[in-house]
């Protein structure tokens, strides 16, 4: 029995005219990419943006590096860029929550703010991270990517990604209130 073709092979086929091949790639990763978007902008907007992500991926698939059989990190990267474009083009009158001065204009982090309201210490600490640190951190913690794949998703080398992750973790660990939060959770677990 022939094994299923990997994503790189399917992308090659789609460039060769196989109309179903790229749709198959999307089917494999849609749940993960949908969850990635939903965690950052909420379900409704994630549903609106998902089609844009696939179109952007379709248009740029010729640049896909076929040395990587798994297209997941690449698709996270396309989703990441779609979010950047979305936030960059957002009307100015739309409020940017409470961290306007802390993050750059394209940063989608403001939307996450609402979801993590109950964890204010963690939220504040996350808001203070640099965007790339935060993206690496959340790709690893939320999307279960390896550090190298998280780096690949946002176009930075594995070594840099590891450094960002290390810095981000140190920043979170040392942020005001984080020690207490960790202790609270430990108590909850103990009970």
């Amino acid at each position, binding site marked *: 029995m*022939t094994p299923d*073709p990997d994503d790189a092979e399917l992308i090659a086929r*789609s*460039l*060769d*005219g*196989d*109309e179903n091949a*790229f*749709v198959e790639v*999307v*089917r494999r990763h*849609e*749940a993960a990419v*949908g*969850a990635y*978007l*939903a*965690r950052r902008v*909420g*379900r409704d907007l*994630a*549903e609106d943006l*998902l*089609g*844009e*992500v*696939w*179109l*952007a991926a*379709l*248009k*740029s*698939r*010729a*640049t896909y*590096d076929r040395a990587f059989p798994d297209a997941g990190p690449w698709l996270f990267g396309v989703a990441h*860029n779609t979010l950047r*474009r979305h936030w960059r083009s957002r009307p100015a009158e739309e409020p940017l929550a409470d961290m306007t001065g802390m993050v750059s204009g394209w940063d989608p982090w403001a939307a996450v703010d609402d*979801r*993590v309201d109950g*964890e204010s210490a*963690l939220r504040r600490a996350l808001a203070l991270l640099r965007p790339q640190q935060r993206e690496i*951190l*959340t790709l*690893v*913690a*939320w999307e279960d990517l390896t550090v190298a794949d998280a780096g690949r998703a946002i176009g930075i080398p594995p070594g840099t990604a590891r450094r960002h992750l290390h810095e981000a*973790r140190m920043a*979170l*660990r040392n942020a005001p209130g*984080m020690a207490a*939060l*960790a202790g609270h*959770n*430990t108590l909850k*677990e103990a009970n």
Partner: protein
Amino acid sequence: MVDEMDLLRDLRDAEPVRPRAFEEARAVLQSAIAADGAPETTTAPRRRARWGMRRTVGLSAALVAAAAATAVALAVTSAPTPGEPPAQALPATANPILTELVAHNTPLRPDMPGDATLQIRNQSPTSDELGHNGIGLFADDGTYYWANDRKALQQAIAKDGGDDVFKGAIAVALYAVKGDVDTARARMAVANLPEGTKPDWERERAERLKRYAKERGENYVPPEPLTPERKKQITDNHIWSNSIDALIAAPKNPQVRAGVLRIMATMPKVEVTKTTTAGRPTLTLEDTWSAGGEIVETLIIDAATGHPVAVSSKAPDTPLRTIYYHTSRVTLADIEAGKF
């Protein structure tokens, strides 16, 4: 022991995307594929390349030399020599509107500032705001760069991430300015292929279908052989697609425009009508072909200059998609330095 990663993981739950949304997003994708990348045997494969950029890893000295040679060839072709014979007349059956436009735009030596054309494609006829189609950069030597955004474009230039995908079509358009238009058409039909390539579409199609059937565990059913009429339709479609590629890739070069218009003027299936686009006099060229239903593609050009304004396509069960082109002359050095 709970660490910061555990705390973060506790926050990752979000309302999941609904199944219907996945289906709708896939439908958007499938519509785009149907409109953009119809089967290989019925549309020019290079059309897809317009949206992307093939990675050129490690440009060898030989490739650099070849690229330089092509650049020289393009430059030489685009510089008219004094005493050169005039353009061969178009046949009497040529489209009169396009013939007149060519006559009124006698191609001159391109006098263009900069060394490249920056092109933003979007859904607006009037605004050159960056949309979802990215930015294209066409160097005057025919090298094509593409990126999602400005920063990525800078990086593409810095890494020699260009592509020579349109050089063949540009060269044929330049030949068509004064050369025999039948020869130009024949060359344009294969302008997207490496020189000297003689594609056997039917054999390639059969091999592809065999491969797919094997992979899916199905029996291979040979397709019906193509009729002469169908073969001509396919060839004409390649001429149409490659001509548009040339025009889009060198919109500021009057000779390329003239060459493309001469070819288009001799394609009887291409309908030309006088139109207005966002208050600007334009000509709309329309070609129709069959590929699992009727596909209509239109090229809108400026009525006075032949500059490309927009390309739209309509496939069965898909909405009309129109891409507008906004171009400006730039230098590669400025783009690489982020001055744009």
